[in-house]
């Protein structure tokens, strides 16, 4: 009961934040609504027993990445209202139809599909036992540092290349 109340609270918050983000004309308010949606998603991660990812969501997404966006908006001085930002009525209609069709298609899959055939009850119990015995962090660390060790190390290389690439791209050209 308590769980479904909190889920409803966070789901409404996330959906409202996302919709307000694309409806708000001011880029800074758009960004703040997106941060709200990310915080709500972090709450939903907690309800789904992904505590580590909930923490990472707040620290990395709502913290680091959104601050980067905010810095760029301020650096380029885009904080004022821009009436040319929204497209015309045709594009809005296309966006509404495309978004509704996409939502309807995926929601129909969720309603029609039977995920119990995808994985049996024993698989779910195995995951729960794993989380109970090692905790949310340990249960995630075990596959991350055994089967997925090479991709994990490659991620560090990717981040290094991204840092160097960002510096090279944003640098002022020498005259």
């Amino acid at each position, binding site marked *: 009961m308590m769980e479904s109340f909190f889920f409803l609270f966070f789901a409404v918050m996330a959906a409202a934040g996302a919709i307000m983000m694309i409806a708000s004309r001011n880029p800074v308010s758009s960004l703040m609504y997106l941060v709200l949606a990310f915080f709500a998603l972090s709450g939903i991660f907690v309800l789904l027993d992904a505590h580590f990812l909930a923490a990472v969501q707040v620290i990395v997404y709502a913290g680091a990445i959104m601050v980067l966006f905010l810095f760029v908006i301020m650096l380029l001085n885009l904080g004022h209202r821009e009436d040319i930002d929204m497209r015309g009525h045709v594009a809005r209609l296309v966006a509404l139809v*495309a978004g509704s069709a996409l939502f309807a298609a995926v929601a129909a899959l969720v309603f029609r599909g039977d995920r119990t055939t995808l994985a049996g009850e024993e698989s779910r119990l195995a*995951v729960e036992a794993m989380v109970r015995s090692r905790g949310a962090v340990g249960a995630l660390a075990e596959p991350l540092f055994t089967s997925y060790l090479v991709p994990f190390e490659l991620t560090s290389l990717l981040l290094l290349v991204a840092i160097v690439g960002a510096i090279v791209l944003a640098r002022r050209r020498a005259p």
Partner: protein
Amino acid sequence: MNLDIENASLILSALLFAVGTAGVLVRRNAIIVFMCVELMLNAVNLSLVVFSRSLGLEAQVLVFFVMAVAAAEAAVGLAIIIAIFRHYEGVDVDRFNLLRW
């Protein structure tokens, strides 16, 4: 079908992805288009977290990688936006035609 918290999360994930798609189509500001892409990545993350409860914790590893790639993508993408802003004096995606012809 009972609307338990997992199925409701999948519906919410579909909704967030659709809103992100609509945002990409309706906005001209490149930074907001970029923010919509981040929202779509997060919608997929939510789906993966739901699936991790029944299919195994590898799905959460995948979420971890999606977050790392999103961070790298944000850094490089925003740097590209800064470089384009210097060139065009604006971030209107309709005016970017560097690769069109």
